[in-house]
Structures are given as structure tokens and as C-alpha cells.
């Protein structure tokens, strides 16, 4: 019956059907594989793009523009009485000294608005720099020196090419007149870009050219140290108890489920906890490393506990049995034999937890770490901010110069994170052990 049906065409065998579809199937196979490869490449591109973008935006922040001016430390202005009294020198008008130096450099500028524009090419931080120079060496008074002064952030941006000189004047922050002055100074070799030490030694500031990350770095340092001091012993202790001593009952089950869930609670909720419990209830002073460390400790605890339990699990029971066999008490067995063997794994987990804590921002906003604090913190209870929050604050600043500083701060933060993660990887490799 079927033969008559297929009388004209040769009979279709299964292998023919397969062969006919093979080409299509192989094409589909290749497509699928290609999509997978594309996904991986796309992901890697994002990594590359992120880093390239940050570095492209931020690498210029590591240099800073300085302007050289012959500064006359006029005795009339600085020390009219001639006493060289440090207090008089500290309170003298260094702004006037700079103004005179600029006037001598550009004698043709006389109009009031122009002189003001001229004065603004030097940073507002320059007078205090001159004051420090004079206080350190009072003999400077009455002499004329060539001094490199910090340029204003607009000039800095112009020199670094972030402000395009070819734009029409009305669309540009720096006017033609100022560009002319800068080009004049440039042709005399009086403008120079130097390594930006201010960025690493100053606290934050409203003036981009004076803003640095030292305050945030110290705040992050104090916070991390305290977080480590709180969360490491508690995490290891909790893991030790739950893994080795705890009876398996409803209570320990509850604790275990709880720890897993805590690891997945959004970080901002920990901020709410910190605000309501530590600040409102216990009166811990806000915006201090102390309260930040308390919140971050609670956040990193699950990470440390889970890693420590895994480390304890990997220690073979024979070690415990041997120790118990020679008469050690259970606690001695743990302290002298099991814990040292599990320590590398615990430390790896702790470093990863600390890296999370270092990069965390959201809960710290709740507990006042976003206060504007210029001073470099001196202890666990002095007001401070931390690096990621500083990044958040700078990212919000309208000045163009803060963009590069934000990116530079991000580079510093990422450098620390990469170092920490590298440390964790090396530690794991170094102590990896096969039983």
C-alpha cells in the first residue's frame, strides 16, 4: 500500500531523514555555541568597559596643575610691626601677597572684573600654603621667591584637556581672557603638572583641587579594624560551637537557617537596624567608625560563620579522635588541633567578608557616614566617613574636577579590594591541604 503511494520517489529511509536534517542541526549547534561564546565575551567586555571607563576618567587625578609665580613676601603686608611674631604672621593677609604677585605678572590687567578673574586662577588654598611656608621659615618675609602655587580646579581641567579650548566661549567655563593668561604662563614654562600628593594627604573639601581621600581612608581603616575585631572572634566562636559542640536540636536548626537567611538580607535593612538599635536605643554616636563597624560586623558575620564551618568540616575526624585519644578535653582538641588546621579556611572567609565590608555603602548612609567631615579621623569615636561613601558624595558634586577625583578614589578602592581578594586566593593556595 505504501509502496504504491511512493511509486514516483525512491523510498525514504530513516537515515535520509537524519541526513537531511543534519545540516540544519549542525548549524543550530554552531549558533548555540556562538551565542554562549558571545555571552561570555559580552560579560568580559563589561568588565573591561567598567575598568577602562574608570581609568580613563580618573588617571588624570593623580597629577595636579601648579603655577609658578615670583612671590614677594612683602614685610609691609605680612608683618607691619616687624616683630616676626608667629601669631601675627599666621593671621596676615596672604591673599594680598598673591594678588600682588599676579598683578606684577600681568600688569596690563587693570579692570576690576578682570583682576578678579585673574585672582581666581590660583586655588583658594594657596594663601594657607604661603602661610605655612612663612611660619616654617620667617626669614622669607621681605624677600621675593619663585613659588609654585596650586592652580584653581578650572585651570587644572583646562590643562588636562577636560575643558575644550575650541568650544565657543559662551559654552565653556573658562573664558578666552583666562585661556590667554594660561597660554602666556604656559609659554614661559610657568605651568607644570606634578604628582598630586594632596589627593592622598588631605581630607575632603568643597574645592576639588584641595580635596583628598586621606580622611575617608583613615575612616575606612578604623572601621575595618574594628569590624575585624568584632566579627572574627564572634564568627569563629559561633562556627566552632555550631559545628563541633551544639546538640542537633530545634534551637541550633533555627540558628542555622537564620544565618543562611541573614546572608541574603538586603544591606540597607542592616542600616535600618543600626539606626533604630545602635543609635536610637543604645545612643552610640552617629557617623563614627564605631557604629559603622557594629553594623558591618553584623553584615559580615554570616559570611565568616559559613566559611568557618566549611573549614571546620574539612578537618578529618581522625585528628579529633587522635587528640581525644591522648586525653585532651573536647575544648583542648578544638583549640590545639582542629582550629589551627581550619584557620587558613577561616581567614580566607574573613578576608572576603572584610572586602565586602570595605565596599559597602548603603547601610552607612543611614547611620550618618555621609556627614561632610574635613578632619582626618583620629580614633574609633571621632566623626568620619569611609571610602565608598566619599565616592558617593563626590559623584554627586557638580564640579567637573570631582569626576576625575571620584574615579581616582574608585581606583584606590578597587586596588585595595583586588589586593584583599588576591590575599584570600594566595592564602587558600598556600594552605590547601589534601588529607
Amino acid at each position, binding site marked *: 500500500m505504501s509502496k504504491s503511494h511512493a511509486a514516483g520517489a525512491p523510498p525514504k529511509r530513516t537515515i535520509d531523514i*537524519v541526513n537531511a536534517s543534519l545540516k540544519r*542541526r549542525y548549524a*543550530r*549547534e554552531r549558533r*548555540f*555555541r556562538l*551565542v*554562549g*561564546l558571545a*555571552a*561570555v565575551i*559580552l*560579560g*568580559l567586555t*563589561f*568588565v573591561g568597559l*567598567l575598568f577602562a*571607563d574608570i581609568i580613563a576618567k580618573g588617571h588624570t587625578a593623580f597629577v595636579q596643575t601648579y603655577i609658578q609665580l615670583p612671590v614677594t613676601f612683602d614685610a609691609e603686608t605680612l608683618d607691619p610691626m616687624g616683630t616676626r611674631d608667629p601669631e601675627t604672621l599666621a593671621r596676615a593677609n596672604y591673599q594680598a601677597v598673591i594678588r600682588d604677585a599676579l598683578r606684577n605678572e600681568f600688569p596690563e590687567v587693570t579692570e576690576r572684573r578682570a583682576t578678579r578673574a585673574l585672582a581666581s586662577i590660583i586655588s583658594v588654598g594657596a594663601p594657607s600654603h604661603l602661610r605655612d611656608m612663612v611660619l616654617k621659615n620667617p626669614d622669607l618675609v621681605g624677600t621675593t621667591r619663585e613659588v609654585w602655587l596650586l592652580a584653581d580646579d578650572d585651570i587644572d581641567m583646562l590643562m588636562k584637556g577636560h575643558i575644550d579650548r575650541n568650544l565657543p566661549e559662551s559654552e565653556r567655563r573658562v573664558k578666552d581672557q583666562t585661556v590667554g593668561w594660561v597660554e602666556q604662563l604656559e609659554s614661559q614654562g610657568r605651568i607644570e603638572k606634578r604628582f598630586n600628593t594632596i589627593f592622598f594627604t588631605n581630607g575632603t573639601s568643597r574645592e576639588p583641587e584641595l580635596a583628598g581621600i586621606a580622611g575617608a581612608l583613615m575612616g575606612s581603616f578604623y572601621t575595618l579594624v574594628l569590624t575585624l575585631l568584632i566579627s572574627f572572634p*564572634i*564568627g569563629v*566562636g*559561633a562556627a566552632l*560551637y*555550631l559545628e563541633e559542640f*551544639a546538640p542537633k536540636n530545634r534551637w541550633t536548626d*533555627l*540558628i542555622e537557617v537564620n544565618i*543562611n*537567611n*541573614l546572608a*541574603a*538580607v*538586603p*544591606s*540597607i*535593612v542592616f*542600616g*535600618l*537596624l543600626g*539606626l*533604630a*538599635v545602635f543609635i*536610637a536605643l543604645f545612643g552610640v554616636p552617629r557617623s563614627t567608625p564605631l557604629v559603622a563597624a557594629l553594623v558591618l560586623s553584623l553584615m559580615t*558575620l*554570616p559570611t565568616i560563620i559559613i566559611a568557618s564551618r566549611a573549614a571546620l568540616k574539612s578537618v578529618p575526624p581522625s585528628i579529633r579522635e587522635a587528640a581525644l585519644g591522648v586525653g585532651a578535653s573536647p*575544648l583542648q582538641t578544638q583549640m590545639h588541633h582542629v582550629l589551627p588546621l581550619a584557620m587558613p579556611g577561616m581567614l580566607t572567609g574573613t578576608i572576603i567578608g572584610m572586602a565586602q565590608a*570595605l*565596599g*559597602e*555603602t*548603603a547601610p552607612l*548612609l*543611614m547611620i550618618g557616614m555621609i556627614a561632610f567631615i574635613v578632619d582626618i579621623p583620629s580614633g574609633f569615636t571621632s566623626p568620619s566617613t569611609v571610602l565608598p*561613601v566619599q*565616592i*558617593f558624595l563626590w*559623584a554627586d558634586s557638580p564640579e567637573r574636577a570631582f569626576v576625575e577625583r571620584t574615579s581616582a578614589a*574608585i581606583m584606590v578602592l*578597587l586596588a585595595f579590594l583586588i589586593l584583599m*581578594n588576591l590575599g584570600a586566593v594566595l592564602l587558600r593556595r598556600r594552605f590547601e591541604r589534601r588529607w
Partner: protein
Amino acid sequence: MHSSTLLIIVLGLMSLAYYLGRKRAIVSAGGAGRISTLHSLPTYYGLYAALWAGIPAILLMGLWTAFQDEILVALVKAELPGSMLEGLSPGAVGLLVNDIKNLASGAIVSRVATPEMQAAADRFALFSQIAVWAMWLGVLALAVGGMAFAWLRTNPRMRARNRVESIFMVILVVFSSIAILTTLGIVLSVLFESLRFFQEISPLDFFFGTLWSPQTALRADQVGASGAFGAVPLFTGTLMVSTIAMLVAVPIGLMSAIYLSEYAPRRVRSWAKPTLEVLAGVPTVVYGFFAALTVAPFIRELGMSMGLNVASESALAAGLVMGVMIIPFVSSLSEDVINAVPQAMRDGSYALGATQSETIRRVVIPAALPGIVGGVLLAVSRAIGETMIVVMAAGLAANLTANPLDSVTTVTVQIVTLLTGDQEFDSAKTMAAFALGLTLFVVTLALNVIALHIVRKYREQYE
């Protein structure tokens, strides 16, 4: 007279107690040669003495610092003339007490100091002086007393090791309870404030209202400042940003997991996987910066060139970047479950003549599906709880919109904006943040529990 000085002194006393206790144990045994007559090693006698010197003293110190302020304030308030407190709201009383404290410490005071306030401030200063002295005396006495107690009880028959070990066990139990206490703290802190919030604003208005404008009036006659707490725009905003993020993260994450675990040569896998995982380690504030300063302007330019009207802070920018952040979560969780699918199932499929991609699509993925779904749910809960990217790139305006090019706001953004800057603990505005926090906590917790349940249940199938 800083309390950290006291803490250092107590720590010093503890080491002294350790030294003395150890020495006394050896002496009581009859010299270093006869230690074997002791019940425990001499170290344990030392530890025993150190614990007795330290723990009670440090406990007292902690309790004292926690309650000193409240007790002092209560004492000073009791002495204030009743006419000063009459008719004042609790908030106003708090302000008054604050002023008295500032007056006592010489800080800036918000009002002209009356003689009564000055007297109260003097009393407060005197009391705090006395309290600090009393704490030092009490703590030091307790430390020395504990040391002496341990010293007297040290003899060869005392079971020092057992005692020290039982103290250690108590400490370990306390440490492991901290996880429970944290959860309790979270629940109670957000719950109390939320309940107070829901007394003022009906939950119906909160969960189903469509207008979000949390400004409350400073004066009763202000215009348009009654405050509207309809959270629907926030929920839809959160949902939209998370959906965009998942649309980016799930295909890319899943496909890279498949490629890396099934196709990629070992060498490629060994560097591609850690490089992708870098995305998970980058702080979210960095993504926020990237989204706000690079991606959002780029999308805006692109949209303008196509004649679209794109807000400078769009849901799309925040969602895209958040998706990038989540890729490694999806990929590593899916990779785990894909690897857990037994090789025998693939071999069976190959034996039937299926190509590799057919095997993956028809056999591996269906087998791994519950695990993948669990992983995706975990990623969703991360997206919902993510804060910094949306704070920096999604905007503040509570728009009820379905257009991803518009600016939207999310639950986490509103929590941050409500709780940073000036805040009073009693206003509906502040408490609204806690209500949002409670919602966030409950939703993400539910998602996590479901996800963990699915992942775990699935994993057991092949083991």
C-alpha cells in the same frame, strides 16, 4: 578619665591575674617540679584568675555605660521645677534635656539659659562627674576583688580547666546566638516603627495608594504638604528596574554558564570565570557612578539621536548596570546546578545521536531547571534590595509609569532619601522609611526562603 583607659587598665589587671594565678598554682603544688599534683595545667589556673578579674568588671562597665545617661537624665528631670515641664510634648522635653546637657558640657545651646536650666546643668555635670568616679571605683574594685577571689580559691584540687572550659562554652553559645539576636533586632526595629506608621497612615493607603509625596507639613497652614504615602509607584519602579536587570542578567549569565561549563576549554574557563566574578566583587557605589556618569548620558544621547525623549536618570540605565552586576550571581549559581547534572544523562542523550546543543537544551537544562529558577530568584531578591545603583542612577521622582526611559524611584532609594539629612524620630516621613524597610525585608526574605528551598530540594535528587 576616658573609659577606654579604664578598659586598658582592666586588661592589664587581667594579665596580672593570669601571671599571679599561674604562679600561685605552681607554688601550691610545691614548685615547678611537682606540677603533676595539680588537677589542671598551671595555665588554666592563670586563665581562671584572669577571667574572674576581667568578666565581672567588664560586664559592670558595659551596663554602666549603657544606663548611666538615662539614669542621670531621670535624676535631673526629677529635680526640675514642675512648671518647666508642664504642657511640653515628649519631643520638647527631649530638646530641653539636650540643652541642659549641652550647657553642662559647654556646647552650643539652642535657647537662652534660664537660672533653672543652669542649675540643672550644674547638677548634671556634678552627677556625671560622680558617676564616672563611681564607675572607675566599682570596676576596679570588682576586678581586684575577682582576682583576690580566684587567688584564694587556687589550690591543687581545684578543677580549674573544667571551670575555664565551661565559661568558654557559655561564651561560644552567646556568640552563636548573635545571629538570632540580629534577626530579632531587624524584625523588632522595623516592626515597631512600621506599626507606629500604620497607626497614622492606613495600610490600605500605603499598599494601594498611587501618590507618593512624603513631605509633611512643618506648619499646619502649608499648601500641599499633608504627605501622601501611596507606595505603588515605588513598587512598580522597583519592579521595572529589577525586570530590566533580570532581562540583562539571566540570558547572559545562563548562556555564559552553559558555555563555560559545557564548551569552553579548561584554559579559557580558568581565567574567564574569575574575570567574570570580578563583576560581583566591585562595590555597588562604583556601578552607581558608572551608571550615572557613563551609561545614563550614553542612553540619553542614543535616544535623542533616535528622536526619543529620555530622562537624564532613567530606569533603563539603572536596570542595565544592575543587570551587569548580577551576571556573575546567575552564572555561578547556574553553573553549580549544571555541573550537578550527572554525566550519565548527557551520555544517554549522546547515545541517541543528539548534538551537544540538543543535549543541553533538551536534557541538561530541564534537569537543572529548578536549581536555575532558584538561582534566578536569589538574583531577583538581590536586585530588589540593591540600593546604590538606583540611588545614583534611577532618580527620585515617584513616577507611576511603564516607560523604561522615564525616571522612576524605588523602595531602597526612598528609604535612603527619607533617612538621610534632617530627621525627627516621630514624623510619619521617618517612620515611612521603616515601613518600606519592613516591606523590603519581608519580600526579599520570602524570595530567599523559596529560592533556597528550591535549590536544596533539587540538589538532593541526584545525590
